[in-house]
């Protein structure tokens, strides 16, 4: 674009005398909000056209009710493939779109949303936050401008240019924002298909409004679109070439040419929270720190200058609530640093990043590890995030989720009533299974009045002979409220349950075991179609999990879902399989780096999980046998590992056929002391029960070793030996003893003879004998005795 052309475009954009005035916004910017209502009151346009979903136009009156913000317009649809998706258009008090509506209402101007409904563009645009800043964030222009203006990121850049400017005239504001956004647009390589499609639609809507209304029009859209809209509406070039872009035939976009047919769609208001608004990241991110900008807006709308002190006070309180030490001196230091940082950055007020940096600088007394959250920073972010939660006014249409829940409960005959209703379900019956899934989804959402009283425990899997559940259902006062609150998770029960589960998984950011348990819950609630994200979350957690036992537990759950499940329909699910492979390999690595302590019983259980995974899964999962064997061999040989672990590894190798009974006997000699023998055998028998009982030599060797033990040694080895042999059934033990007796030539296998004296006397006799032999040995008499005997 030539310089003159660019200049004339800019002066057209900033022209407030024209028939159609373009107002550029960054969504959720308080400065834009203040400016747009000022401009509307000044210009008194006939209609205000806003970048919002045009399929919401019939319901615009709902937005005039007395809601408590933040709220969002929720647009959702389902297609023929059964996929359900939804997107949000969130509004806060300080949203320019919201203030534009309020101002237009006050001068009785017409308000209209002009954006293409999301449903019509969802096939090529999957952003679920429709008021995000992705198009402003990307690109070289922003990077270069950040460098030039000496700021770190786009958010700081915007603050510097717009928000933190104390006195900005409307004209200067328009010029800055238009010129910034136009430049971002010009520097972009190629506009995205979805933007072109939306802009064509918006241009058409503006043309329609021009024909319909006599007076002036104000078009409030993202600044990124303003220049494109002017060009579409006012340059001499006809729009044919661009219109053709609406139906792309590019071969690489095969999916866009025939999007799946939409089966049902809807749009409704729902409550929103600042927390949700702030948690969006990547391309879905909008303006960060809503609590901070809310504060800015409050000060601005009360005509007061902005001050950071209240935020600082809130921060101090929140830190003290978390039991962090923040002295008055510390607060002074934060305050001084914040003011100095603001001055260094050329600002008159302490701003967002100054506060964060001041706290980082003055309060944190330890190294900040990459990716770890410091309680101080967390508290700052929480204060800057704010805790406002929206609430819909009475008389708003019910959120779709509430209707969906009611319909499903009625269909299943499970509506809560005033009297307590106990429902017993047999999970092998398909009707009951459907009910169970419905109830599990409801219980994931924590709706009041539904309790699982008992049933098969799918986490410990102790008794899977009967698959059943008992639920108690009763209407409770909080039921309605919890339903409406749950609406933020989605429009349908299945979707909401999936989102909630994902949220739970994110709360347990470090525990793969918990995430795997959630996966089992997801399977019970039958949301596994939507649990792809849950699985990828689990995959990340597995890669980071440092605890072998927890990981093995997670592996156990995964294996159950993949191999043994009969009712959830997760068996042979390739995604679960892939995660199981990941868990298996990670477990091998953790196994190798295990230390010398640990609960032996749990370790052996974990080893069994590994063995089971390999045995059951090796034909269906790509498990690397070489690696498996190599790791086990190293563990078996490692001198620094626990005897039980080494025994377990030896047993696993033996079962695999990678070890011979000779080698096992050799190993046995290594552990031939009272302290370790039992532990080693414990591990060995737990993992190689089958092979062990078929090898009479092993029992003989153990017998040999035990005979060499002194009486005290034997007694100290006894408990763990006894534990080791509990892995065999009585019949197996009988068989083992029989082979032992046979090999020793003792043919009569009969119970021990009854003692003629009582236990106490026998014990005393044993002690006496023991002492006698000890004395004999001390005086060197046994030699002589031997001599006499021969």
């Amino acid at each position, binding site marked *: 674009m030539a310089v003159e052309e660019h200049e004339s475009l800019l002066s057209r954009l900033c022209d407030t005398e024209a028939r159609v005035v373009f107002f550029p916004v960054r969504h959720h910017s308080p400065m834009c909000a203040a400016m747009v209502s000022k401009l509307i009151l000044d210009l008194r346009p006939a209609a205000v056209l806003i970048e919002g979903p045009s399929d919401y136009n019939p319901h615009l009156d709902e937005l005039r009710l007395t809601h408590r913000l933040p709220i969002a317009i929720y647009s959702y649809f389902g297609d023929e493939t059964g996929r359900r998706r939804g997107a949000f258009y969130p509004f806060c008090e300080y949203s320019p779109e919201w203030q534009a509506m309020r101002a237009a209402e006050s001068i009785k101007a017409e308000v209209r949303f002009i954006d293409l409904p999301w449903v019509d563009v969802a096939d090529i645009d999957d952003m679920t936050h429709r008021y995000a800043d992705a198009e402003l964030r990307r690109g070289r222009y922003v990077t270069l401008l950040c460098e030039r203006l000496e700021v770190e990121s786009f958010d700081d850049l915007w603050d510097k240019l717009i928000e933190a400017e104390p006195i900005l005239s409307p004209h200067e504001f328009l010029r800055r924002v238009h010129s910034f956004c136009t430049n971002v647009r010009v520097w972009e390589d190629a506009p995205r298909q979805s933007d072109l499609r939306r802009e064509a639609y918006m241009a058409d809507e503006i043309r329609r409004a021009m024909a319909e209304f006599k007076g002036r029009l104000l078009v409030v859209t993202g600044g990124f679109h303003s220049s494109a809209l002017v060009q579409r509406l006012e340059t001499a070039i006809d729009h044919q070439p661009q219109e053709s872009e609406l139906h792309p035939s590019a071969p690489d976009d095969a999916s866009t040419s025939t999007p799946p047919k939409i089966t049902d769609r809807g749009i409704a208001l729902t409550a929103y929270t600042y927390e949700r608004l702030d948690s969006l990241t990547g391309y879905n991110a909008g303006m960060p720190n809503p609590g901070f900008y809310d504060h800015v807006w409050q000060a601005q709308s009360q005509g007061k200058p902005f001050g950071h002190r209240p935020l600082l006070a809130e921060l101090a309180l929140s830190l003290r609530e978390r039991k962090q030490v923040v002295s008055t001196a510390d607060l002074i230091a934060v305050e001084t640093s914040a003011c100095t940082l603001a001055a260094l950055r050329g600002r008159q007020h302490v701003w967002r990043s100054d506060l964060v940096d001041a706290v980082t600088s003055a309060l944190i*007394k330890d190294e900040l590890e990459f990716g770890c959250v410091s309680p101080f920073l967390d508290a700052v972010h929480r204060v800057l995030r704010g805790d406002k939660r929206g609430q819909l006014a009475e008389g708003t249409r019910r959120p779709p989720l509430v209707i969906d829940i009611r319909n499903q409960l009625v269909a299943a005959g499970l509506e809560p009533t005033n009297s307590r209703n106990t429902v017993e379900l047999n999970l092998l019956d398909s009707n009951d299974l459907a009910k169970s899934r419905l109830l599990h989804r409801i219980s994931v959402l924590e709706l009041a009045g539904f309790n699982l009283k008992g049933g098969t425990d799918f986490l410990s899997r102790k008794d899977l002979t009967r698959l059943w559940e008992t639920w108690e259902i009763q209407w409770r006062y909080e039921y309605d409220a919890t339903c409406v609150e749950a609406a933020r998770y989605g429009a349908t029960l299945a979707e909401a349950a999936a989102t909630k589960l994902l949220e739970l998984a994110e709360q347990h950011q470090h525990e793969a075991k918990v995430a795997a348990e959630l996966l089992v819950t997801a399977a019970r609630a039958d949301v596994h179609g939507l649990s792809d994200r849950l699985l990828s979350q689990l995959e990340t957690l597995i890669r980071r999990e440092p605890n072998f036992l927890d990981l093995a537990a997670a592996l156990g759950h995964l294996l159950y879902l993949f191999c043994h499940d009969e009712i959830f329909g997760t068996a042979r699910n390739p995604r679960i399989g892939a995660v199981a492979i990941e868990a298996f390999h990670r477990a091998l*690595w953790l196994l190798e*780096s295990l230390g010398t302590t640990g609960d032996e019983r749990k370790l052996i259980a974990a080893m069994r999980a590994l063995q089971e995974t390999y045995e059951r899964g090796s034909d269906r999962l790509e498990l690397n046998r070489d690696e498996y064997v190599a790791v086990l061999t190293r563990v078996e040989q490692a001198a620094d590992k626990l005897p039980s672990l080494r025994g377990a590894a030896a047993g696993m190798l033996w079962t695999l056929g990678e070890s011979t009974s000779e080698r096992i006997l050799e190993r046995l000699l290594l552990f031939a002391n009272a302290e370790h023998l039992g532990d080693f055998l414990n591990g060995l028998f737990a993992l190689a029960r089958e092979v062990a009982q078929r090898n009479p030599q092993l029992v003989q060797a153990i017998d040999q070793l035990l005979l060499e033990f002194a009486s005290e040694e034997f007694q100290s080895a006894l408990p763990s030996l006894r534990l080791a042999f509990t892995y065999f059934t009585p019949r197996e033990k009988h068989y083992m003893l029989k082979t032992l007796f046979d090999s020793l030539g003792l043919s009569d296998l009969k119970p021990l003879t009854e003692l003629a004296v009582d236990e106490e006397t026998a014990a005393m006799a044993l002690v006496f004998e023991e002492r006698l032999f000890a004395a004999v040995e001390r005086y060197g008499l046994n030699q002589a005795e031997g001599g006499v005997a021969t």
Partner: protein
Amino acid sequence: MAKKKAAADNGDGDNSVAAPVAKVATELQRPSAEVLYADELARLIEADADQPKPLGWQMSPRSVLTFVLGDLANQIAPKFVGRRGFLERCIVSLATNRGLMLIGEPGTAKSYLSELLAAAISGDSTLTIQGSAGTTEDNIKYSWNYALLVSEGPSERSLVPAPLYHGMKNGRLVRFEEITRCPLEVQDTLLSVLSDRVMSIPEMEGDGRSLFARSGFNVIATANTRDRGVNEMSAALKRRFNFETVPIIAAINDEMALVGRESARMLARAGVPVTVSPAIHELLVTTFRELRAGKTEDGKGMEPLSTVLSTAEAVSTACAAGIHAYFYGDGIVKPEHVVHHMVGTVLKDNPDDLKKVRHYFDHVVHKRTGLWQQFYDARHELG
């Protein structure tokens, strides 16, 4: 690290920026930052003569930032790779009544950064206390010339000032290197100095009893995170410092460029005409980053090593591999040379680390293609 990096930047930057440096650099083995960048400092001081500055500073905080991060338009060489917000915080800490504590892994250029800041703010980076187990109060505050003390009694003439005394008297920044290596009671010498800004000299009489710090005095301490626990810092002293963690270079491309530049320079200085190819650099830097973070570039978890794997270590590994290839090979650096020298730099004396590196080779390197295969094939060099 500091030394290498300082010299590298002037070698790498615009010639006209580096020109005055070359002359000094040939005379001294390692000139201090204020000598090396005398010209840049003079220009910056002149440019903001009328700007408001904190008392006792020779330039405004904004110019200090420009000096460290560089400004190519005004021919100021960039000297440190780091985020702007982080540096802003460091500089602001020095302008307040708290000291600045730089902590981080070894080899993250903490000392170099403190040298640059001292040079820019006070024009003098030589007031340095080196912390060690043997550091005493005398090394920090002052001691006496005993001959004069006996003949003349305590006076300014018989007092031998140490860096802290100098800094307070003249309003300069004092650098305290490796503060956590000093015993706790020696560290605590700083307590009264940092809070009351006064040092008492009980031997002297009259006005000489207290030395009040002039404006411009402050302390930059460095501590490395691997040594913490040798001597913890007292809570009282911690309170008087603002802590800043110096991060490891975040972008792999920046780190690769730095390693390439540095190793080439070191090889040139050693008179070894070998160039290490970018592919080898990528291999080396990727390996270091993955072992350091305990995570592969595609996000799989591993156990991080207990030894330090700083950028500086990567440079010396590359350099050693180059020298090895020149004298004992055909002059071409191959993956096996890298493996060979990783044993010395990476593995040091920890047998657990060897196990982890072996695991890394078996599970990560093994699955990759290209040069990585040669890298894998040389794993027997690990011992």
